[in-house]
Each structure stands twice: as structure tokens, then as C-alpha cells.
């Protein structure tokens, strides 16, 4: 399949009259674990979620008619497909035209999709689609196998999605389109730069609007395929695994064009002005690529984005243009003149634009696990802290931060045979953290990381002039986990837990552990 043939297919389909909008059903499956002999994929589930979000937002699929399965077994996929087929059959009995989309992102090997520890043969999936009681059945298979920076999907020696054979066996009265992300002897690839597989990334970009070659506000199946094909081949030409060529089986005898997304279903979005040209990348709040726009001068281009804050970047030969936009219920125009010009070194990757700084204020406390340690030495303390953190400075969704916290309180020291002694203590801690953010949704982010900190604890004994003040300083390595919720453009609320190790060596050598819990509010600069 060449880019020219794909465009010809697009033109052919575009020439046919549009069909009435059918009742749409979608089964979207993502599975990062391929079982024995495979390595987990980084972005398979994210790919599935992106496609699911697009189909249910601008693809005409009602949430009740869509199923998103991640980490599911083959049986669950069969059951979900059977359920949607039944719903489609019922709709057809009511006289409705129906369309069924099945999308899969994950491992494939030896002609089988890997679903957790179970398998689903490609031939079985094909047969299920052929027999599905829907007027139009579309299968999108982005099967993969992990790699290093550019990860391989599928296995070079495994059979490709044989659209020719499927076409020969296809005997049903309904149209069927099968699209695979790579040819039979190719690897499909993931990319850390775009945080997804190449094929799905460009498929998604196309469905959001960049594939709308006709400019009619609708992205058809042929447009989406042609766009995804061209961009996938172009982007993978120089990768270590080599160029990746999507393939298809297209058999919609008698059928008209199939519209996959209608940009008008999203009131908000971006409009790239007619005067500008070039390649733009749109990043979400977590600095992951949401879509790309390859634009020619002379026509505007619309991207139907969900409400949110986005970063638009355009890479030039000697600089990068960057601008932040907030998408709500209206279209926001993007023009080069409104973008800020930055040095190229501020854009080492597609998904990064230099550090994003934020300041965090926290209030929490610490508690040692050992009761003996809590007795006077390290009593539970209330801590107020501040933290400066940088995201997108290291790549790979890694962030780092420097923190400082001050606290203290009063406690009672109990010694054998001695009257309880009141003490007043002060605790000062600070450290450096490195963690990875995991975007759970548009507004929720989970983070896991490690931290090396210093801890100083000083105490004195009011009313006991015979006792001198004491202090202790040490380093404490630890782990930390955070959950944050963005509630404003710049503001997030978060809860954080830390698990720390401390080596105490004054009275005796002792390994101690303690945990810290805190809540805080974070302000992100520059958004």
C-alpha cells in the first residue's frame, strides 16, 4: 500500500454519496501485558483510552453503546462483542442502520492477539466481525510488541493481518473494513516522544480533525486511514525498526462513505489559521501529545478537542513556537504570530518544552513506626512545607523537586524510674525528589517516586534547666506517592504519602522507619 493508493482510496470513497448517520457501537480494547515472551507496552492502554474518548465525544457513539476494556481476557472481549452485536441486531430490527467499530491496541504474536494470559486468534476476530449483525463493521488492530525508545509491536515473523484472505472468505451481506497498523513483515512501533503508538497517534490526530482533507468538518474512514498511513510511514521511516506501513481490507460494497467523526459535535477546539503552514503539535496538561496538525497554507484546519488547557508547539528550523491555549465551549484560533518563540534547546522532544515549574505548599505530619523512637526522640510532629518542582525537565514523565518543611510540637519523655519530662521539639526537613507522573484523567494525576532528604530534630526541656538541648541530623532516603487533582488552570490539590528510612546511631545503632502524610495546594507557573 502506498501513500498514493491510500489517497486514491480516500478520493474514491469521498466521491460516493454520504450515508445516513447509523447507530454506532464501539468496542475498544487496550492491553499492555502480552503474557509470556513479551514485554509490557507503555502506551497500549492510553491509546485505547484516546480512541474511546474520541469515538464517544465526536464519533457519534453514545456511552451506553461503547465498551472500553483494558487488561481484559479474551473471554471478556468475546462477551463484550457479543453484547454489542446483540444490541446492534436489536437496532437493525428497529430499522436503524448500524455501525460497529472494534479497536485493539496491544501485543500480537503468531496470529493471535494477546489479552492478559489468554489469546484471541486474529482469524476469530475477523470471523466475529464478519458475522456481526451490523451494516458496517470496522476493525482497527494496532498490535504491538515493546521496544526501547521506539518500541516494536507484534513480531516480524508472525503473520500480518491478511486482508486479502479475509476478503476472499468474506461472504456476508454487510460491509467490512479491516485496518492493521503494519504490514505482515513489519513491526508496529511505540514512541516515548508522542507517548503512544505511531499508528494510533496519527489515527487519533486525524479523527480529531487533521485528516479532514475535504474540509467539510467530517472525518471519514478513508480520510482517517489515508492520513494515518501517510503520517505513520513518514514518522517511522528513520526509526531503528524501520518504516511501518499500515494495511487495510476495504469491502463496503454498495455502501457510501463512512463518517467516523464529526468535528461539529465538539463545540470547542482549535482553529489553525489559513495564513500559517507547518507542523504543529498539541500537548495536554501532562505534556503528552494529543494531536498533530500538518497544515498547508491557504485553508484553515480545525481540531475538535475536549475542554482543557493545551500547549501548541510548532517546530521551526532554528526555534520552536510555543503557546498555551484554553479550550472551552468555543473555537480558539491558533496563529503563529501569537506563539512565543523559544530556542530549540527548550524543545528536546515533541512532548517537552523545558521545565514546568510549580510551587507547592503542604501541611501534614510524620510518625515513626517504632514506639520507642516516638518516646521523646522522634515524637509525631506537625509539619508545614514548601516544595519547588520541575516537570518535563527530564523526559519520560519524570519530575524532580526540592522541598523544605518545618514543624514541631510538645511531647513527654518517659524514662524508667524517672518522672515524665516534658519536651518541646523542632523538626526541619528537606530533600530532593524524583518521581514519575501517571495521568489518570484530565484532572487527576498519580505520582510515584523516590526522595533523599535531610532531617534535623532538636529538643529542649522547659522547666528542666539541668538538661541541655539536644539535636540530631541525618539523611533519610524514602519513597513517595502522590495523588493530585487539578481544580483550576494553575491550581491543584494533592495528597501525598512518604515512607522513609532513618538510621539512628546515638544511644545505639538502629534502623527506623517513619511515614509522612500531607495535603497541599500546588501552583503551576507559566500555564
Amino acid at each position, binding site marked *: 500500500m502506498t501513500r498514493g493508493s491510500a489517497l486514491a482510496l480516500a478520493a474514491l470513497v469521498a466521491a460516493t454519496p454520504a450515508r445516513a448517520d447509523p447507530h454506532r457501537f464501539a468496542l475498544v480494547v487496550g492491553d499492555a501485558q502480552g503474557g509470556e515472551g513479551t514485554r509490557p507496552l507503555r502506551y497500549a492502554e492510553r491509546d485505547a483510552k484516546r480512541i474511546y474518548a474520541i469515538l464517544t465525544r465526536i464519533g457519534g457513539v453514545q456511552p451506553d453503546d461503547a465498551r472500553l476494556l483494558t487488561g481484559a481476557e479474551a473471554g471478556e472481549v468475546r462477551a463484550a462483542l457479543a453484547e454489542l452485536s446483540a444490541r446492534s441486531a436489536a437496532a437493525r430490527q428497529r430499522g436503524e442502520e448500524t455501525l460497529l467499530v472494534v479497536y485493539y491496541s496491544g501485543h500480537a504474536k503468531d496470529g493471535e492477539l494477546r489479552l492478559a494470559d489468554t489469546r484471541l486468534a486474529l482469524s476469530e476476530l475477523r470471523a466475529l466481525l464478519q458475522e456481526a449483525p451490523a451494516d458496517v463493521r470496522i476493525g482497527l488492530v494496532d498490535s504491538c510488541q515493546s521496544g526501547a525508545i521506539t518500541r516494536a509491536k507484534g513480531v516480524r515473523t508472525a503473520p500480518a493481518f491478511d486482508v486479502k484472505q479475509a476478503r476472499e472468505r468474506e461472504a456476508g451481506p454487510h460491509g467490512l473494513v479491516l485496518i492493521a497498523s503494519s504490514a505482515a513483515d513489519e513491526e508496529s512501533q511505540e514512541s516515548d516522544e508522542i507517548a503512544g503508538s505511531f499508528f494510533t497517534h496519527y489515527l487519533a490526530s486525524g479523527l480529531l480533525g487533521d485528516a479532514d482533507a475535504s474540509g467539510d468538518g467530517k472525518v471519514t474512514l478513508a480520510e482517517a486511514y489515508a492520513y494515518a498511513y501517510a503520517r505513520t510511514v513518514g514518522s517511522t521511516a528513520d526509526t531503528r525498526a524501520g518504516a511501518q506501513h499500515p494495511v487495510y481490507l476495504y469491502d463496503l460494497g454498495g455502501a457510501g462513505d463512512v463518517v467516523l467523526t464529526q468535528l461539529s459535535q465538539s463545540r470547542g477546539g482549535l482553529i489553525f489559521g489559513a495564513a500559517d503552514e507547518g507542523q504543529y503539535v498539541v500537548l495536554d496538561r501532562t505534556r503528552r501529545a494529543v494531536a498533530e496538525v500538518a497544515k498547508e497554507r491557504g485553508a484553515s484546519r480545525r481540531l475538535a478537542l475536549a475542554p482543557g488547557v493545551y500547549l501548541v508547539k510548532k517546530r521551526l528550523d532554528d526555534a520552536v513556537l510555543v503557546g498555551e491555549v484554553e479550550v472551552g465551549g468555543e473555537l480558539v484560533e491558533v496563529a503563529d504570530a501569537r506563539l512565543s518563540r523559544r530556542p530549540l534547546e527548550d524543545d528536546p522532544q515533541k512532548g517537552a518544552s523545558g521545565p514546568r515549574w510549580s510551587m507547592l505548599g503542604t501541611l501534614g505530619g510524620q510518625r515513626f513506626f517504632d514506639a520507642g523512637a516516638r518516646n521523646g526522640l522522634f515524637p509525631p510532629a506537625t509539619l508545614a512545607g514548601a516544595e519547588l518542582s520541575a516537570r518535563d525537565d527530564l523526559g519520560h514523565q519524570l519530575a524532580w523537586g526540592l522541598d523544605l518543611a518545618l514543624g514541631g510540637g510538645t511531647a513527654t519523655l518517659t524514662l524508667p524510674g*524517672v518522672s515524665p519530662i516534658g519536651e518541646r521539639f523542632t523538626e526541619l526537613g528537606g530533600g530532593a525528589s524524583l518521581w514519575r507522573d501517571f495521568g489518570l484523567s484530565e484532572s487527576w494525576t498519580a505520582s510515584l517516586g523516590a526522595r533523599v532528604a*535531610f532531617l534535623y530534630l532538636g529538643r529542649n526541656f522547659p522547666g528542666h534547666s*539541668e538538661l541541655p538541648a539536644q539535636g*540530631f541530623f541525618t539523611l533519610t532516603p524514602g519513597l513517595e506517592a502522590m495523588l493530585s487533582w487539578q481544580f483550576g488552570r494553575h491550581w491543584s490539590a494533592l495528597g501525598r504519602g512518604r515512607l522513609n528510612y532513618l538510621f539512628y546511631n*546515638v544511644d545505639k545503632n538502629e534502623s527506623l522507619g517513619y511515614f509522612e502524610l500531607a495535603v497541599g495546594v500546588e501552583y503551576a507557573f507559566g500555564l
Partner: protein
Amino acid sequence: MRSVCRTCVILLSLAAACGNLSNDDVAFLEALPSKDALHVQVPAQTAQPQCLLGEAQVWLSAKPTSDNINAGVDGILALVDVIRGIAPTTRQADTRTWGPWPDHDHPGLTIRVTMSRTRDASGVPQSYSYVFAESKGGDFLAVLDGTFEGAQAANGRGTLTLHFDNAHTLGTAKPTDPDAPALFAYDLSGNPRTLEMNLTAQAGLGLQQFDYSFAGYTDGHGLFHFAFPDAKGNLFTVTASFTALGAGKAEVGFTTAPPFSFSGSLSECWDAAACLSYVDDPYAITQPACGVFKPCVLGSPASCPSFP
């Protein structure tokens, strides 16, 4: 691999860990007597009205004497307090060592303090002992040692021995210091708390007597025993009791100044204003108006305060 990582973490933390945060240090220091706890507490008598039978000299001299005692205690415990401001040099489960460090008041000398304790099976401290020693470069000589029974000096029994003899050997003693050890004992475990100083040699610490004892009760009354000379050279031995308000009674033994060296005793009571309310002085030592060596009884014994 896991053990290697764990070792690295411990070594890193060990290298960075420092300080004196120690509950055991607190336990050791709590076993050392403090100045306030060992002070003799005698009510002060500030205003002196006109007295019908005369002033109670015994009582009026009690406060200055107690101040002298307290000053002596402070001098001893000043040495003890040195280690409160510095962290131990070495720590073991039941031993602490401070120093040696240079004695800045006496160049050429170094100071070392060792302290040890015993504990029962449950870990409760039973006794402490400590030695403050100095050295000119050879062996360390004890200048102060102490023992303590209990876990907390504020409510236990202990002794302090000031080794004036060693201080003279080291060259740190003052000319007025005794040349033999002085023993100071205290018992703060009950009611009354008792303090006793025993100078085993000649005069020292500004006192003319070899021993002094004091017992103070929580309700403010107390008793003491000591001796003092008057301006004529007569030596008086006093055993006195006093109320919280300052009234009291005393048995006074005396030995007249040479060449007569005549011994005897008298009794007297005084009120809260330090005025004598009763005197039974068989030889009129304190009341010359009664005549020389004539029995002298003034006032009423009923005016004497009673004590439990």
C-alpha cells in the same frame, strides 16, 4: 544485591548522622544532683523589731550560714554542671565518658568524667556512680566522685566526695580549702529531705564546724544542726527546729573561749519576728543582765512552737 543496597543506605546514613539526641543521656543527667535540689532552705529574716527579751541570734545566724552552705554546694556542683553542656565522648549501654578535655582554668591539666550505672532486670536504673578526675599527664586523680541510689536525683539518695587532698596534689586547691576529703550526703527520697556536709579535716568553706546537717519538710518547717563562734570566741553548737513562718526553738551547747573552756547548754525559743520569747540560760551566757553565772529564765516555755 538487596543486602548490598541496604548496606550502602546504612553507610550513607551513618556517615551523615550526627548529634546528641539521646534519651539515655537524659537518664544519666537526671541522676546528677542539681543545685536547687541540694540547697538548704531557711526562711529569711529581713526586718528586726525591738525585742523585749532580745534578738534570737541563733536564728538570725541561720540564714547566713545556710547561704554559706549553699554557696559551698554550688561550688561543688559547678564542676558537675560542666558535663551538662557537652555531649558524652563515648556512649555504652551503661557507661558515659566525657573528655578528656583541657582544663582552661588550670593549664596543663585535662579533665575526664566517667559515669556508670546498674539496672535491674526490667531496665530501671538502680544506682549511678561518677568520677570527675584530672590529670597532669599521668594518672587521673579523682577531684570529685559521687554515688546515687535511684533513677532520678530529684528523689533519690546520694553522696558527693570532694577530694581536697587530690586537688592539693594537682595544684588546683585554694589555700583556704581543707586538705582532706569532704563528704556531702543527701536524701531527697522522702519527707524530710536531708542534707549533710561532713568536713573531715580542719576549717574550710568558711565554716568553723566539721559538720552541718539540715532536714527540710514539704510544709516548710525544718531543723538543722551546726556550730558557730560568737564575737567573744565562744563556740556554740546549735540544734534548732523552725516553723515555716520562722518561729522556732533551739538547744545550744557552748564551750567558752579559753582560758576557761567551760562547757554548758541553754534553751531558747523565738517568735516569727526573731524575738526571743523564752530563754533558759543556766549560766546567763546569752543574758548578762541576769548576772554572771546565775540561772536565767525569761519568758514562758509555753511560747515555744511545737513540732511533729
